[in-house]
């Protein structure tokens, strides 16, 4: 009964993913932020509260911070951690391009060769794309980020830097 795991399992649970799972980056909810969203995965119950703070407006808008509180499996937790590392500090238009690249990778059913220059640690999720049931785990935070960012840009075309919408503690 001591067979080696299938190759698939190790391609899913890359070291990078397990590292991020055990030591999540940028975790916690922080001020300031312009939008906060709560996303759930209704089939498994994973939950994520995510805040986005943008600085600058229009084409110069920059992802100044992405903070979060999450409960979920290793894949969803690690994906959130990797995403914040990739997106914080980037101009929004660049971040959107990374988002698109990650989505394409996840929907590629394992046929897409990930571009490390764009996705950094995100390439570790290439194996997840071969497990259709887990793709939604990896995408939970990315969808939440897009939702929150769209809310900020839609509601406030030129967000005022460092302004928190209100001082209520929502988390």
């Amino acid at each position, binding site marked *: 009964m001591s067979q080696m795991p299938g190759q*698939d399992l190790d391609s*899913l649970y890359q070291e990078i993913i397990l590292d991020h799972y055990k030591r999540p980056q940028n975790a916690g909810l922080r001020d300031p932020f312009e939008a906060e969203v709560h996303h759930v995965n209704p089939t498994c119950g994973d939950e994520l509260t995510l805040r986005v703070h943008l600085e600058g407006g229009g084409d110069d808008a920059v992802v100044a911070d992405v903070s979060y509180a999450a409960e979920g*499996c290793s*894949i969803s*937790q690690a994906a959130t951690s990797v995403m914040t590392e990739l997106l914080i500090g980037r101009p929004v238009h660049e971040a959107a391009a990374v988002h698109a690249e990650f989505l394409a990778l996840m929907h590629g059913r394992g046929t897409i060769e990930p571009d490390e220059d764009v996705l950094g640690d995100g390439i570790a999720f290439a194996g997840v794309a071969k497990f259709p049931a887990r793709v939604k785990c990896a995408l939970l935070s990315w969808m939440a980020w897009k939702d929150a960012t769209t809310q900020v840009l839609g509601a406030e075309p030129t967000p005022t830097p460092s302004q928190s919408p209100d001082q209520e503690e929502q988390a």
Partner: protein
Amino acid sequence: MEGLLPDLEVIRKDFPILERTLAGGHPLVYLDSANTSQKPQVVIDAMVDHLERHNANVARAMHQLGAESSAAFEASRDTVARFLNAPSRDEVIYTKNASEALNLVASTLTFAQEISTEAATFGPLGEGDEVLITEMEHHSNIVPWQLLTQRTGATLRWFGLTDDGQLDLSSIDELINERTRVVSLTWVSNMLGTVNPVREIARRAHEVGAIVVLDASQAVPQMPVDVQDSGADILVFTGHKVTGPTGIGVLWGRRALLDQLPPFLGGGEMIATVAMERSTYAGIPHKFEAGTPPIVEAVGLGAAVDYIDSVGMAAIRAHEEAITAYALDGLASLPGITVLGPQTAHERGGAIAFEVDSIHPHDVAQVLDSRGVAVRAGHHCAKPAHARFGVQSSTRMSSYLYTTPAEVDAFVEALAYTQRYFGTTGASA
């Protein structure tokens, strides 16, 4: 091992899927039967035979195939009625699944003008009326009652749970009162495994004239169920958990109650006559079976209940209890495992939800699957029950009449492997 089905190896040969191997050459260890059961060859054959030789619509086709198909469909109803010890075959109504059956009850009660039970007359439901459910219900026995109470203004009330996963009956005298119109609860919890004292609760509910609805989705597959002895006014279950096909569920109800409920879905088959100004309705069961019913599914369901009945429901219950006890022992042999619900097999059905320290249920199920062990991970459509125990989600293994002790061994071994894989073995934190 005492209690195991004596012909277990023969029974396993009845289920062709159990011969399967999965990726990596691992034999299938199917421990997700509370989710859906596997199907014996006799059910598969009955359905194929019907489609190959007897297929026609029922009740309206004036030809030989129509007569054969109608006879097969109605024979299935006879079989199910006999299996449940229903006083009348007409009290057996076919639905799409247990969810639809529960929605049928809640929806028709929403519109019922007046209902008389042995101890009360009430209706239409509104403010001041109460519907009582429990915190261990499957979402399908929660949401329909939320809809009913939101639509009528009635109040939804809940039996709480004790720390060991039993219904908290300490407040039963207050919860079941003269305002209680419906008490709807699960017989066996799909998450905690708890077997509820339904007869006693039904007795109390009937004293105040309330209608008793039993969700028997996890009970009918694994224990003898006699609807007349159960105390239920309405009892529902689904075909695919009793070795039958998906797409068919059963609602049994007392005629006196069903006759008072308005129709559910309108359409063909459920009418007596239709005129442009109004229609009159067929009697039960057809009043609640609008449209072409699940014909081949009914044939499959009839074969399925014949099959488990021939094995014997008391014997299946004994088998489930033996396997469950063995699995509880196996789980107790590993560090960092917390079993939710009652801790002894005789208090519970054959589904065991548990937590593994520091490993998310999704990850547990994923690694088990890589070893051929199929379990369920998530909230099992019982979020309030999970919330009650402060758990977001859990892993669940569930056995059935074809489950062997060796499969439980493989499951426990795979679980130990999972802990090693994630480096949490012996973690005492």
